[in-house]
């Protein structure tokens, strides 16, 4: 039985940027074979070139995951070229920020079509191959938001909750095939261009909510699942966020999370160009592994640290002065002369 990455064939949707691209490069570095899917063929060719330069094998297949026929074609191309599909990573996702009451209905629906139905089409396309082979690993990249929720992310949260529920139910159905695995990945905030690509109907510009983790960490988790499939795996502080709800009353954690989103999921700049991001058309100029949000977090955290340090020093100095500093005596009203201060 092959268990080395170099012998596996992995299909990755959303391979042009972020976690998908980082995973493809990580597999290629270990001389594995990847079948790359996303909407933009130029980005795909670039990623394929990078994979082959690292020593892997890559097949680019332009695919829009909202079109089931294209997803079926993706599976067929992988099997026709390499004879086998060992792993299918559903990773193609878009996000949409804005209050539910202000978000256009077709944008909302498109998030569900891409993030949820895209994954369903992927599962439906690959399972016959897994059945024929007797084995296979389906990895659905969800999000911690699917478990704990977040304001301004109704569509995204709903789609990721749907993915988690779908994965759980499918895993139970596939218990008759012990070598077919369904794995859910729950990343926390990852430094990817997801946020630049985001459709934003809120009043402020978006930023990635800290703490922000590197996409390579998510790729490591996915490659780890290929070696040792597990039901669920988290990336970053997702496990802590989920565990909080069992330790602290849910009403309280929801309020804390909502406040954190308000404070830290947006920049101070107003949103001058509300729009649909990459929901309906890809934005290839933003395709990369990283979104630059880890540097952004460092910069803003650094400024806050300096302000905090100054404030602390000032407060400490004021306290010491009040306690021990020599000051002229305050004038006392004649009528209170007899009252002694303690």
């Amino acid at each position, binding site marked *: 039985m*092959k268990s080395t990455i*170099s*012998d*596996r*064939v992995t299909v990755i949707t959303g391979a042009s940027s972020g976690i998908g691209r980082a995973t493809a490069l990580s597999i290629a570095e270990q001389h*594995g*074979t990847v079948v790359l899917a996303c*909407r*933009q*063929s130029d980005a795909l060719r670039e990623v394929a070139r990078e994979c082959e330069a690292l020593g892997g*094998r890559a097949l680019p*297949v*332009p*695919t*829009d995951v909202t*079109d089931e*026929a*294209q997803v*079926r*074609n993706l*599976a*067929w191309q992988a*099997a*026709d*070229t*390499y*004879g*086998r599909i*060992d792993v299918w990573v559903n990773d193609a996702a878009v996000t949409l920020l804005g209050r539910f009451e202000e978000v256009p209905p077709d944008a909302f629906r498109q998030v569900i079509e891409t993030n949820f139905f895209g994954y369903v089409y992927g599962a439906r*396309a690959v399972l*016959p*191959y897994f*059945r*024929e*082979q007797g084995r296979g690993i389906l990895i659905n990249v969800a999000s911690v938001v699917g478990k704990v929720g977040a304001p301004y992310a109704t569509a995204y949260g709903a789609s990721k909750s749907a993915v988690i529920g779908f994965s759980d139910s499918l895993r139970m159905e596939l218990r008759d095939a012990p070598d077919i695995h369904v794995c859910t990945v729950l990343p926390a905030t990852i430094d990817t261009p997801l946020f630049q690509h985001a459709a934003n109907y809120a009043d402020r510009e978006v930023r990635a909510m800290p703490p922000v983790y590197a996409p390579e960490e998510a790729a490591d988790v996915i490659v780890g699942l290929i070696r040792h499939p597990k039901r669920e795996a988290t990336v970053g502080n997702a496990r802590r966020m989920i565990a909080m709800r069992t330790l602290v009353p849910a009403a309280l954690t929801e309020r804390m999370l909502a406040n954190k989103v308000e404070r830290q999921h947006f920049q101070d700049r107003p949103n001058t160009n509300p729009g649909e991001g990459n929901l309906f058309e890809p934005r290839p100029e933003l395709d990369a592994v990283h979104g630059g949000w880890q540097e952004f977090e460092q910069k803003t955290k650094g400024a806050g640290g300096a302000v905090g340090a100054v404030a602390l020093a000032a407060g400490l100095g004021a306290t010491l002065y009040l306690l021990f500093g020599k000051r002229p005596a305050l004038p006392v009203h004649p009528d209170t002369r007899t009252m002694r201060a303690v």
Partner: protein
Amino acid sequence: MGATAQQTAPLRSIRVETALARLHARTNNFSPRPGSPTVLLIHGLVISSRYMIPIARRLAPLCRVYALDLPGYGESEKPPHAPSLPEAADAVAAFMDALGISSAHLLGNSYGCQVCAEFAVRHPERLQRLILQGPTVNPHERGFWRQLWPWLKNARHEPFSLALIMYRDGYAAGMRRSIETVRNALADRIEDKLPRIEAPTLIVRGANDPQVPQSWAEEAARLLPHGELKVVPGYGHCLVYTAPLELRRVIVPFLRLDSLTTPARRAGSART
């Protein structure tokens, strides 16, 4: 969609009198659909059609398949000397004559690719499409000792049952015949014949095959006028025995065999 069609079908043995020798072959037990194409499977060095059974059984639901024992091997008649490449190619043609097959697809493994290439050059009108699975001999590693080490290295990529088949078939063929055939194989220059093969040809190699390195496989595909190359990750030299499912999946579209077990391709094209 769904695996309602069979994935494998049983085989039976036939014995065919040809002008050259009485030949044994394995073929479909139950006839395929009328009008189905015919695929001939040509085995490799010092072995017989026995190790072609896995791929033969997987192709049997889709087409008429013949896994042939070359003269001197398996259960075919044993002429006094080992066949040369031209004689082996003519034996295949004689087999087709005896069964009234005017033209067919050919699939060879290892030395069988050399027989198929010889056939393609001697009897081009009898060949439809050609599949060279693991074509030998790599011209950059010609010679017995230089071929022996890759052959030994490949052993860990195949199940032990294949070694047992080889011992049994080698024993049945005899030492003298085996040595002669190996000599013929090493002297044969497949790279000289490839440019003369007009039929569409697919080269398939296992990614871990030490006898057919990627560079040689790519060179062979370039030498062919109508050649393409596919690589199956995770396997070695004998895909016909060790990876029949993967091999079937990559050759079925090339041979244009209708398949009910492989999900049919829909005509979807991506927005680019």
